[in-house]
């Protein structure tokens, strides 16, 4: 028999989103997922079932998230929670979700707890910032040939996890940090940080920045005429950066990435772009939208693969774990292993791009070649 939330005609899944409040710009993730499910429904649903994608505003307050998730599971009987957003909100509810044996797919969070939880029900979206931090040090060493780096990081779990990852491999790579500068997410300007980094004599900069602060940094860097090579983390890779800072300021900057770029001719990306345009015409396509797409698409694929048999949460997990080298989504290739994290990550690999001539172009560091 089917799990709760499943009827002959319908699949009910839920997510919590910061629709209002200070981080409401991240609601883009919800919009991405929502656009995808609208598209699915308009094209006949999944195996004849329509998807009801219920989003609730938790304002990024864990207490509200908790009561929303309780409602999802106890009242609404959601089948699964797909593409919700937020580190603090997810941290607050993940134990509960797991205890209720409800699948949590593609949550937008990089907090360590959510990525390392030992539970078969959780499918994190992207790899930990720790791993990424470590990779970026290697990148700075091998691509830039730098042994002294400065780091600019967001003063929050993402930035701090990056820092931890970076620190963990310094010795191994023979790299030292000359300046580690934090900034608050909404900080008006980052000039003092940039000045300090420049003064520190760094040979390269690792930037753990979201698009807006990244753009501020690049503007400032250009202003000071500081030609230091920079590599930025994946969540700063967005056309937004160039739009905000101007192409010149971003020219020559490297980014790690988990998705193909919107400029990429790959069919799934172009499809996502047109879907978004159709259902959320006022949105400018952005990486965060793709976070939403990724979880939603994997979920859809799994349900599709489950065919006409009973749709249960256990089967969903099994089916997801069977996805191997699937290339039908915005993620270049998805392989999900058995067990729990890290095998459960939807996205496992980082790749790199270089901003050049107004475009992101693929770049493979030596070890990938």
């Amino acid at each position: 028999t089917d799990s709760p939330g499943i009827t002959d005609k319908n699949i009910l899944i839920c997510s919590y989103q910061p629709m209002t409040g200070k981080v409401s710009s991240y609601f883009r993730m919800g919009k991405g997922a929502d656009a995808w499910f609208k598209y699915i429904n308009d094209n006949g649903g999944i195996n004849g079932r329509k998807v009801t994608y219920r989003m609730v505003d938790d304002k990024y307050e864990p207490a509200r998230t908790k009561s929303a998730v309780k409602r999802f599971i106890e009242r609404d009987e959601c089948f699964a929670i797909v593409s919700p957003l937020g580190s603090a909100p997810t941290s607050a509810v993940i134990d509960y979700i797991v205890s209720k044996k409800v699948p949590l797919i593609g949550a937008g969070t990089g907090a360590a707890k959510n990525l390392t939880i030992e539970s078969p029900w959780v499918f994190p979206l992207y790899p930990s910032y720790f791993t990424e931090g470590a990779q970026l040090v290697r990148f700075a060493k091998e691509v830039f040939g730098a042994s002294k780096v400065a780091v600019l990081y967001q003063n929050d779990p993402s930035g701090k996890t990056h820092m931890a990852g970076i620190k963990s491999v310094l010795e191994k790579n023979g790299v030292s940090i000359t300046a580690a500068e934090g900034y608050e997410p909404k900080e008006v300007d980052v000039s003092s940080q940039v000045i300090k980094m420049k003064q520190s004599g760094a040979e390269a900069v690792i930037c753990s920045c979201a698009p807006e602060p990244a753009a501020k940094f690049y503007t400032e860097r250009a202003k000071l005429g500081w030609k230091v090579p920079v590599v930025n983390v994946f969540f700063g890779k967005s056309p937004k950066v160039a739009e905000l800072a101007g192409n010149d300021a971003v020219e020559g900057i490297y980014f790690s990435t988990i998705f193909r770029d919107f400029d990429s001719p790959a069919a799934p990306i172009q499809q996502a772009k047109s879907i978004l345009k159709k259902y959320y015409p006022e949105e400018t396509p952005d990486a965060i939208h793709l976070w939403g797409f990724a979880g939603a698409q994997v979920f859809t694929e799994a349900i599709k693969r489950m065919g006409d048999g009973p749709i249960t949460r256990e089967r969903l997990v099994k089916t997801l774990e069977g996805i191997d080298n699937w290339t039908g989504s915005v993620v270049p290739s998805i392989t999900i292993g058995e067990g729990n994290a890290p095998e459960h990550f939807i996205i496992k690999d980082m790749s790199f791009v270089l901003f050049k001539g107004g475009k992101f172009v693929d770049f493979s560091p030596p070890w990938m070649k």
Partner: protein
Amino acid sequence: MLGQLILSGIATGSLYALTAIAVVLVFRNTRTINLAQGDFAMVGAFLGIYFLKQLGFSYYTTVLLVVASTTLLGVAVEWLIMRPIAKSDWLTLFTATIGVFYILTGVMGWIWGRDTKAFPVNFDPTPIDLGGALISMGHLYNIGWALAIGVVLYWFFNHTKQGIAMRAVTDDPEIAHLMGIPVKFIVMLTWGVAGFIAGFVGILIAPIIYVSPEMMDEVLVKAYVAAVFGGLYSIRGAVIGALMIGVAENLAGGYLDSSLKTSTAFIMIVVLLAFRPQGLIGVQKRREI
């Protein structure tokens, strides 16, 4: 490094200063802590994008149109929202501006989305060298405007009949009316001027901090702190306070720890209020008994 930190601090401080001036203006004329002041500027920035990009107007036409629109916005807020409750205590007025804040943020987010947008005008990025410290054209403009508006308003308040009348209205609206001062008009004018300044702020600040419904939150909070430096009454005090905050933040970020940077302003304000509750730039105190 010191020179550069100070100069960049002044540049940031000037962003706070313009908003702080408007905050002081509205407070001293209407007893209202205007939480929507930043949003006026935010609306201005969005309109700026719209005029420039969608309608393809020139920069100067855009400036004119934006300033005109935000002035109207200020007047409309006064007329529709503040006037009916003008006689309430300041907490009510303050809360009403929170309402305005919600509405403006909501409307802008609704129309143009919540993600950050670039402002289509960029100042010449080549910086200017001032004795070893660098500053960009955009920041220089801001400093210039902040000083100019500050000077004009200071003069206006203290040396013109209309300026004195504005203060008289705050003091005792009923008697001001009795003196023949058009109270309603002056209150409306105050909000109009607040909108006017916000229009400039929006256009000037947008290329630097980008455009989104929340763009002004941080600036506004700092502007309040700056305004308190002048006892919420002195325009000169607000400008000096704003510049001090900008510089202090940068120095704290540069020499102490970058995590202290944003809190600097609040540590400053707590210390200031504990020791000089009337603000740094004291205004003559009246007796209460």
